[in-house]
């Protein structure tokens, strides 16, 4: 077992981090929130320039052909900077799904290069989510219908907007009619594909939650060092510093769980789904605790619009229920544990 990432993976993550530090300051995110689409073409183009959109596209279609482990690092950064974009829906999930469609080579040829160069947006409709994120800007929608995969153009669907409690999300109900013409994978193949999408999406959310948790912790630390009460920085009080120390513990214990899930998906482990659910629960717990504690440390300021903390808290709360809420993922873990003949004892601990 080796939990260290490759040097190249870390170097790429560091490059993305440096880029986002400059390009995704909170003031800029607030400006993007206020726009109707809630998305910035400029930011998306710059993200493509960084090579992020090409990450999961196979080399034959103009991409880099990397996968789940690389995305875990990148998604942490997208979370840390609360990037207002469903970037990984297109560049990670849709790329993964399109690549694995049984035949339709024309569909791959049409879309994968465009994903790689950052000119296409693809939205995903899965029954675990009542809404489709960013459907209004999607050039193509990949939609679930009785386990089949359907590829539908935006002008073939009817959208109704549902404003989220989190300003940067753009959620839509999608009405559409499935037909032979839109079907690109039958149910017997689609079932596994959708399971793969769900697991990768939940993993992506987990990694973003880790990033969000870290950001909220960092904001809490900054505030506790600057804010003075009783004549000294509030961070010097044990009652305050222990709150944030708890968060650090929670985040560090969630990380290997998320990394394990990524590795399980990347290597097609039979229990990958259980690892993913565990990761989602652990990362969401960490993000929840970080939000709660950082807000507590911020005092009343943490409850205001003005303080940046709210941007990250609301994202963390919203992602908590995305791609399977707690009950969904706990049920998946419980089903595995209680299944007839589950291998739980010594010798199976790390499978």
């Amino acid at each position: 077992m080796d939990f260290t990432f490759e040097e190249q993976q870390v170097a790429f993550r560091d490059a993305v981090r440096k880029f986002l530090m400059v390009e995704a300051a909170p003031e800029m995110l607030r400006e993007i929130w206020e726009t109707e689409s809630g998305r910035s073409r400029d930011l998306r183009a710059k993200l493509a320039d960084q090579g992020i959109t090409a990450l999961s596209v196979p080399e034959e279609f103009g991409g880099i052909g990397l996968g789940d482990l690389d995305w875990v690092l990148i998604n942490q950064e997208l979370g840390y900077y609360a990037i207002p974009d469903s970037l990984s829906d297109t560049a990670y999930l849709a790329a993964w799904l399109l690549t694995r469609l049984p035949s339709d080579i024309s569909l791959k040829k049409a879309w994968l290069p465009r994903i790689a160069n950052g000119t296409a947006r693809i939205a995903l409709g899965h029954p675990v989510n009542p809404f489709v994120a960013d459907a209004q800007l999607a050039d193509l929608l990949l939609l679930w219908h009785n386990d089949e995969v359907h590829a539908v153009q935006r002008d073939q669907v009817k959208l109704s907007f549902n404003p989220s409690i989190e300003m940067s999300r753009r959620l839509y109900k999608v009405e559409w009619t499935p037909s032979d013409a839109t079907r690109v994978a039958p149910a017997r193949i689609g079932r596994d594909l959708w399971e793969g999408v769900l697991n990768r999406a939940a993993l992506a959310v987990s990694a973003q939650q880790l990033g969000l948790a870290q950001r909220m912790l960092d904001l809490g630390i900054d505030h506790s060092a600057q804010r003075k009460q009783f004549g000294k920085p509030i961070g010097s009080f044990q009652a305050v510093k222990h709150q944030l120390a708890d968060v650090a513990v929670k985040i560090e214990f969630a990380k290997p769980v998320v990394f394990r899930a990524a590795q399980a998906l990347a290597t097609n482990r039979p229990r990958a789904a259980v690892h993913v659910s565990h990761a989602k629960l652990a990362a969401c717990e960490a993000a929840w605790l970080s939000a709660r504690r950082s807000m507590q440390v911020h005092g009343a300021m943490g409850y205001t619009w003005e303080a940046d903390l709210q941007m990250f808290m609301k994202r963390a709360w919203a992602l908590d229920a995305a791609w399977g809420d707690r009950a969904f993922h706990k049920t998946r873990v419980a089903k595995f544990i209680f299944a007839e003949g589950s291998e739980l004892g010594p010798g199976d601990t790390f499978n």
Partner: protein
Amino acid sequence: MNLQPSTTDEAFRAEVAEWMRRHLSGRFESLRHRGGPGDEEADPVLRKEWERELAAGRWTCVGWPAEHGGRGLSIEQQVIFHEEYARAGGPGRMGHIGEGLIGPTLIAFGSEAQKRRFLPGIVAGTEYWAQGYSEPGAGSDLANVQTRCWQEADGSWRVQGQKVWTSLAHESEWIFVLARSEPGSKGRNGLSFLLLPLAQPGVRIQPIRQMGGGSEFNEVFFDGAAAEAGHLVGKPGEGWKVAMGLLEFERGVSTLGQQMHFAYEFDLVVKAAQANGSAANPQVRQRIAQAWCGLRVMRYNALRMLSGGEGPGLKREALIYKYYWSNWHRELGKLALDVLGPAGDVVSDDPRIRPLQQLFFFSRADTIYAGTNEIQLNLIAERGLDMPREPRPTA
């Protein structure tokens, strides 16, 4: 100990219920269950009319002595009143700062003239109050008040400084303010307690936008704002004593109504879980059962805390109350959102969803306002358990 209701109490309960049934109807119908914490912006005009409706029925200030316009109800009957008020869906009380905080303070510490001037307006629902304690530099360290006040030659007072997190200042006529009257004094010494009209040139009110989008709180700026000579409560320099007496009221009887509202919210969470099927999930069931237990514990403890105590002095069990309810309620907010699942993520006007979203948002602040968790635990340790005090920097 006798936990059985008496027959007089039952008759009183029926009287309140009947009055609420007949009066919280017609044009007041839309106020049902509105205006609670997190929803204080809801229809303030109509809610003030409702206050006057209550006043006409003599249902404001029911715990005050009769000589000051109240009913002088026993603790048991106050509990019954709050229960029936909440059961009927009575709206959040616009007058609660007057009735629950400044009124009792004036009754305890005010001059005869102040009582005559201010108590009738509170009882009648014609004058509303805001609380001016917190400042940018005085939150948990409440005694670190920087707002100054001084007396002019004619005896009137002037106030200079800033208050913050002032609920409903934009809907109120008056504000009570803690300000430093002795230049160079520090901490709890040298403070004075003043009553000021908000509609005057020296006062500017600026709303604070909350993370949920609404604005129940304000910043209030004082630039030479004036208070009449007779509107100082207590003696100059004794403002801290008056203010602390008032905070004890805040943790006392006035929390009973809030608890009944919690019971209503709990009911909403259960209904939502039944409606969307999450009530079948063992995780959700356990948490709901725990919440129910917590609600009962809170209620019993509040009644224990209040029974036998008439004055403003805090009893030992009162120290644990704020800590308990705020953490319980914050957890209920999370439970509500977990029950809603993805549906809770979307802005909604659905009466089964919207109140739960508001509950979630506003309950995030419960463990912060009116004494943070950390301050509450220090109080329990230092006052309740006589543990050594946290070292304070020398002034």
